[in-house]
């Protein structure tokens, strides 16, 4: 398993303690395309942040690519994030004073890649996502779908083995949502990137191969969805 979680607990303590994750056991293999669903406040984002080493957990064990991820220094965490993981957020999180291409090449900067190589690679990604004409535009000049595609390009440019997406379609309309999900599906099929998508839209979840439900801080039922028939709205549509 690429990702192995054993009995993960997480409690937030802002004045009064809030036990959010109450013993998560989860395994995700290389090349899987899974979604995590659950009610608002059920701890989906919390779980995804732990998976992405953006946050730490209180109890249990998290094995990533056979390495125990526990009490890492900031430096080590940054290293793993940079080498293994790409993030896509609901609110895009592009740096708004950098152009699209500058945003995309930034992770390579932290890998010490030369400016020229960075630029070439970033441009090729933007081209692939149909954004070549927008390369020198700033985020506030882009539509939501374009921004999210830039964000995905940025997440993928380091060729991460895992792509974590927290409600990647949350701020997009249904047509753009379909485009983004198609893009993720293609990545999973051709590049074999392991993709974990947090969502509470069943249409989005239906695009993935496996749907993990989280409820009351533990993993509930896991639905295999190879046929992509789970959506009550049918295949290839995302109702908003």
């Amino acid at each position: 398993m690429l990702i192995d979680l054993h009995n993960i607990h997480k409690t937030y303590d802002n004045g009064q303690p809030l036990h959010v994750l109450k013993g998560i056991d989860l395994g995700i293999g290389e090349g899987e395309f899974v979604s995590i669903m659950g009610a608002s406040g059920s701890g989906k984002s919390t779980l995804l942040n732990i998976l992405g080493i953006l946050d730490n957990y209180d109890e249990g064990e998290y094995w990533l690519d056979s390495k125990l991820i526990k009490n890492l220094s900031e430096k080590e965490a940054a290293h793993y994030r940079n080498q293994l993981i790409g993030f896509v957020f609901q609110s895009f999180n592009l740096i708004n004073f950098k152009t699209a291409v500058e945003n995309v090449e930034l992770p390579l900067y932290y890998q010490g890649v030369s400016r020229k190589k960075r630029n070439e690679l970033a441009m090729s990604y933007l081209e692939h996502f149909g954004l070549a004409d927008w390369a020198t535009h700033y985020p506030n000049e882009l539509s939501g779908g374009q921004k999210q595609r830039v964000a995905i390009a940025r997440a993928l440019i380091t060729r991460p083995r895992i792509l974590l997406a927290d409600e990647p379609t949350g701020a997009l309309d249904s047509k753009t949502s379909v485009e983004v999900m198609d893009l993720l599906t293609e990545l999973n099929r051709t590049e074999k990137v392991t993709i974990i998508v947090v969502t509470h839209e069943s249409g989005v979840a239906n695009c993935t191969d496996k749907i993990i439900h989280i409820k009351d801080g533990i993993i509930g039922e896991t639905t295999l969805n190879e046929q992509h028939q789970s959506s009550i709205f049918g295949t290839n549509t995302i109702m908003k």
Partner: protein
Amino acid sequence: MNDLLTEIWESIRRNKLRTALTGFAVAWGIFMLIVLLGAGNGLMNAFMNQGEHFATNTMAVFGGVTSKPANGYQTGRRINLNDQDVAITQSALFSGNVDKISPELFKGPYTLAFKSRHTSVYLNGCYPSLMEMNKIEMLEGRFINQNDIKQHRKSIVLAASHAIELMNGGEDYASLVGKTVTTDNITWVVVGVYKTDRTAQRVEAFAPITTMQMITNDINYVDRINFSFHGLTTKEENEQFEKTYRAALNRAHKAAPDDESSIWIWNRFTQNMQMGKGTHYIRTALWVLGILTLVGGIVGVSNIMLITVKERTREFGIRKAIGASPREIMKLILAESVSITALFGYIGMFLGMVACEVMKMTVGQSSVEFFGETIRLFVNPTVSLSISFGVTILLVVAGAIAGISPAMKAARIRPIEALNET
């Protein structure tokens, strides 16, 4: 490196007002530091210049007015120095410390004439050793010598400025040596011409004191006794010497031995010692003032950097989420802080140096009359290149110090918290 500069440039471009404000604080700090140091240097150079006219190990002695009744005399009696006092100074009593002696007798102004040209002059009757003590630099001929003294010769040493005047503004004053000039009805032979310093006291001509005493009918009278000394290195030693010396002269004039107003002693050595202390205090005070102003600038930069870090929390969170290590973030802030400080510091330094030059051209040229002596308040009020290099290092260090706290804050930002902020 190039990338880092790009990042800094972007940040500066995006925060023009902030950059201008911090920049102003730093530029002002450095400007003040340079101007203060420049002014201080000007003051001290002026001090030094004053001192440079005399050998430092000399004393000058004047007669005064008694302040204590003694030997049947009331107070308020005027004491005139005379040949006997010169003899006492020269005697075995003080030969352990006293080296060379020259009394002085001032008279004037006279009309100094050569052919049809004339100018006004003060005459200073002295011994040959005055040349060394007053650092008189001969341009032509010689100074007063022992034979002039013994034979009451009418030899005169002219100032270059006077010699030029007498030669109708011509520079060939050398040809004046050996010629005769007159003061009122006395004829002198010019034996030498000395260099006049623009900053020096009133310009005078030197003559043998014996001749002066003779022609002015001031037999057995001197205005001042100068002597150089050795072996008095501490303040205490100097005070002890002055005490016994004063007592000896007082006794000769039948005044109270400890009367301090009947005999005035001006000790240039202790004077210099105090001046040295004075300049030291001034210098320290200026540095402290300058540094405080600069610290103000640093605190300003630091505060504003802290605000930017807060504003950019989300950005740093994003950077960390995509793989920036805490070090990278710190580097970014520190480099920005150093760049802003150094850039505006240099602007401040440049303006400060311009201000120093302006000072040099204005206040630096003016002078005041002080007891008949011309004193320049400012001499060359500028800072040296080495200080400027020092300031450069200071700036980089200051920028780094200003950046440390914001940089650490930025490096500590947890991506998860930064990203949750909207």
